[in-house]
């Protein structure tokens, strides 16, 4: 088991640009969830209380759409980042899902269940992180598209039947619950409660990871960096 904070210069894992993207994504999504849930749960006390806090339906809508603009802007920046910058493109290539991820997952389950198998050598992003990224990307795209139709209701009505509009409204609400689970049940566990990182994986703030943690969690990447001479070997 790797010990955190062991000797050796830490390695940069996330650039400032990436950390700002994450922070903005987190802030806008949180606001979107809170203002969205106040509408979704308008008939119970928590929804009523949130609505009151947000200045009624009007204020709520304003905040929600404001946060949506931030989210869409971050998404647009992210697209530019992965398409037009070398670093961004590299990160995206690491993020591509592959069959190895499924094998890694199954192997990891066997490790945890105590079968005599080797722990998989994860690359820069392991299957959990790829799942997190792609699940949120797909859910986010769904929310942005259905949200835009609901935002520009009058324009949307000109081109879509009522049942489609109703469907998008329901979709927008249910998908928000999926995102809530993805973030609060899965992501918060993944970066806070998981025994390996408890109480928190600090890299989202510091942008850095210790070589020993890198070796423990992303052994393939560690080996690659070590071979390239970027880092020293650790025990």
């Amino acid at each position: 088991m790797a010990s955190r904070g062991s000797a050796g210069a830490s390695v940069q894992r996330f650039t400032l640009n990436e950390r700002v993207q994450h922070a903005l994504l987190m802030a806008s999504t949180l606001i979107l969830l809170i203002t969205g849930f106040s509408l979704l749960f308008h008939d119970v006390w928590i929804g009523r209380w949130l609505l009151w806090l947000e200045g009624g339906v009007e204020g709520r809508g304003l905040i929600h759409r404001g946060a949506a603009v931030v989210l869409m802007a971050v998404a647009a920046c992210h697209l530019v980042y992965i398409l037009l910058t070398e670093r961004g493109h590299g990160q995206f290539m690491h993020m591509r899902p592959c069959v190895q991820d499924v094998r890694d997952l199954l192997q990891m389950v066997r490790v945890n269940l105590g079968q005599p198998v080797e722990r998989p050598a994860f690359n820069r992003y392991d299957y959990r992180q790829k799942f997190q990224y792609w699940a949120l990307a797909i859910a986010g795209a769904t929310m942005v598209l259905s949200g835009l139709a609901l935002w520009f209701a009058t324009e949307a009505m000109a081109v879509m039947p009522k049942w489609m509009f109703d469907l998008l409204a329901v979709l927008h609400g249910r998908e928000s619950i999926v995102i809530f689970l993805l973030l609060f049940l899965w992501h918060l566990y993944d970066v806070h409660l998981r025994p390996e990182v408890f109480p928190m994986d600090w890299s989202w703030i510091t942008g850095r990871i210790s070589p020993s943690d890198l070796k423990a969690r992303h052994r393939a990447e560690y080996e690659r960096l070590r071979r390239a001479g970027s880092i020293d070997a650790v025990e």
Partner: protein
Amino acid sequence: MMHHTRRMAVGGPVPARGVRQASRAARLVLGFGCFLIFTLWGSAMGAATGRPSAQLTDAECLRCHGDLALTKAQPGERARTMYVDRAILTQSRHAKVPCTGCHTGISRLPHEPTLGRAECVSCHQREATAYADSIHGRGLAKKDADVPTCPRCHGGHNIAAVKEPTSRVQPLHLAKICMECHADSRITARHPEMPSVLVIRAYGDSVHGQAVTKKGLSVAPTCTGCHGTHDLKPADDPASPVNRANVAETCGGCHQGILTDYRQSIHAEALARGVKEAPTCTGCHGEHTIAAPSDPASRVAPRNIPKTCGSCHAAERIVRAYGLATKRGETYADSFHGIASKFGNPEAANCASCHGFHDVRPSSDPRSRVAKANLPATCGKCHPGAGAMFAEGRVHIEKTKESAPGVFFVRTFYTWFIGTLMVCFLGYMAVEVYGYRRRRRQARPNRGGRG
């Protein structure tokens, strides 16, 4: 009528004396004839109503009643003044009516200690007939002492024409006169059949009451405007203007255009068919509490409309009895319109915005605003883009497999998806935590020998 007759009787010979061209004999015969006819007629009429044939002048009455000190005391009562202020009488509508015009039955002076009630019927026959058949008149017939008689409302010696500003029953202050009894809890306590004082008092704050008191509109309805005047009857009397069957006509007396619209509505149709729950004007607007739609407290204020319509359309008993569409209230409340309206956006569509109000028709009726063909226009009032395309799909229905397959599918999908997702997440976490604990135990094999 009576007193004119009497005057003519006295004045009988006068015109005879003025005829200069006729012969003395002719004049005498004519004069005597006239005198005889008028006198006999006068006596006959006088006798018929029990009046003294002898003329009593006001001066004779005032000989006693002009005295400030004149009082009368019934045993066990405080002395009441019997003084009559001549000045009040001469300014009244009845200035030219002699005392005996109302105070009948005086055969000698000094008269009997108690005279009957001052009498109005001999001149105001129509009103008296109507009154006799009113709830007040019926009470009087039963010797109910709380019931108002003519002077209780109109005043006595100070009586003024209804339109005079000084009249007690002038529209601007009539309500106060009615409330003297109807808002008096001692009287209502004696008469449990009378409406609650609170109901009566509510009128003062209503749009009608305010129009009278604040805006000084004498045409705004005061009590009698809706309930009738001399012929006033309780609402459960079919002849009452505020009986359910007559309310629309009564309100339509002023609100004519609205009555025309209302007559087109399914509500009016049902009312005519005898559906006892079908709303007439007051069903939605309230009665004494009626307020303008712009008043947030009004039952027909935009925010309160869903509740007002829902009081029937979400009432299970009524919905079931008349086969009305179900879950209309809930599905509206859960829609964007419903939520926005509930949380204070007065512009958000409420029931009336789409269905119309006075002329509301079911969607199956081609005249209805929510008939399929009219939906683009109706939705288009707020959403100018909504075209024929948008009308494909039903509005605030219970979303079932049959009525809204798309929404039903999305809901079902997410129910399973979210459930599966949770199971997967929790299962994975459990496996990971199990593995971690297992490895930790193996790393420290000497500790306590557990597991």
